[in-house]
């Protein structure tokens, strides 16, 4: 399943979803797709005729596109020099905001981190410091 990051989020709104899946469409039933609509084109001015059927969304994991990081109360600061890459922090994040690639944790996903502080609590090396406020 596609993992959406910040760059993908920007891309999504400028890329027509169905173009990405065009080769699949071509293979499927050979018929013209009548339902798929570029959801990024739908906004509060869209007339009812242009909404999707049953408000279906033609993408997966679309909740990642919503910036819940705006609600953050405290902010984690990553002290990379102290991090031993033990990866105890990544699985305990309730919002899955610590991406892991090639066995190493990356920077916090600030679009979705709410500042709960569980990661800082778990880190044995003080590599995560919670600062007050939404920084």
């Amino acid at each position: 399943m596609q993992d959406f990051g910040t760059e993908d989020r920007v891309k999504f709104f400028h890329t027509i979803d169905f173009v990405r899946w065009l080769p699949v469409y071509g293979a499927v039933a050979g018929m013209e797709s009548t339902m798929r609509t570029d959801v990024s084109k739908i906004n509060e001015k869209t007339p009812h005729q242009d909404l999707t059927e049953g408000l279906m969304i033609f993408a997966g994991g679309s909740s990642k596109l919503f910036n819940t990081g705006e609600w953050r109360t405290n902010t984690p600061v990553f002290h990379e020099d102290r991090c031993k890459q033990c990866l105890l922090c990544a699985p305990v994040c309730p919002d899955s905001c610590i991406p892991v690639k090639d066995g190493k944790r990356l920077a916090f996903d600030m679009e979705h981190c709410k500042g709960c502080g569980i990661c800082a609590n778990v880190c044995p090396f003080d590599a995560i410091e919670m600062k007050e406020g939404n920084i």
Partner: protein
Amino acid sequence: MAIKERMSGNEAVAFAIRQVNPDVMPAFPITPSTEIPQLVSTYIANGQMDTEFIPVESEHSSMSATIGAEAAGARSLTATSSAGLALMWEELLLAASNRLPLVMALVNRTLSGPININCDHSDGMGARDTGWIQIYAENNQEAYDNFIQAYPIAEDVRVHLPVMICQDGFITSHAVENITLLEDNLVKDFVGEYEPEEYLLNPGKPIAVGPYSISSYAMEAKKNQELAMEASKAVILEVAERFKEMSGREYGLFEEYCTEDADYIMFIMGSAAGTAKQAVDDLREQGKKVGVIKLRVFRPFPAQEIAQALKHCKVAAIMDRCESYNGNGGPLASEVSAALFSHKVMIETVNYIYGLAGRDFTVEDVYDIFADLEAMVENGKEIKQYQYINLRK
């Protein structure tokens, strides 16, 4: 060559389900619909169907699972009655708003209370605003034929709405009558394969079904759903036409029995229409100009067609097998009166409530009602509106 058999309504619907061989059936038992999932389970156990049967813990779960399965891409259905339907209420609305073409076999039983297992239309009527297509049967033949037409109606791209196939509890569901069945291959060809354009279990084309919507979108979504309900009327007639070509049996939005020159018409739904037709035959022999309109498609409500069909009569008796507790009459009375008024058809109507919780409705009752209507017109007798037939008082 058609197959002549004797079956109850439940057996007939279960037989149709076997012939359609859907993908998933989550179900929970409730009298008088229990035999439908029971007989389907037997077919599956005997290897005559490969449907995935899911015995769930309640009707809330059976509709929930049916919605999930249909959204996943499986042709799904369930069966229930009365309180079982009521327990599904919040999900009935979702099946329709998510535009899922699933089917339900509803065996009409009164809603509690008092607790009672016999027939009336309060369960189906209680769900009349949920956005489902609702088709009512007079007898086992119609229940069977309607069920076979259900998926072709629901799955049509102009519709994509759930369909409820209704039959009267015990009266139709349990009484054994003659029936003409279709061959398996004919039904299979008629119903076809379910090929959804979009579905959840579709790698490479992920979708989300039933998202939250802020107020800026909800009203537009509801309008689109409403338009699908309007469009379904034409589709129902098209499917009926195809069904007629296959079976020779004709269906429409309603049946007009001896109404062309009728002065007095009884407007009725369900098995009691058969009783009414018998009474009409008897009264016609005496020279009375009486007729019956048997409503088949209650949702979408064919207001204009009904107004046209009733236009030329002097008085219509609108028969409700259900209370709506609005202080004025039953649901059919409300909807037929609204249809007549908005089309400026100013005939007299009298609303009768009959057959609640299985109270018997006889041919004699129909004679009495027509006699009342006649007395109203010819002798100026005042007829009380909103009467209960056969009420002890």
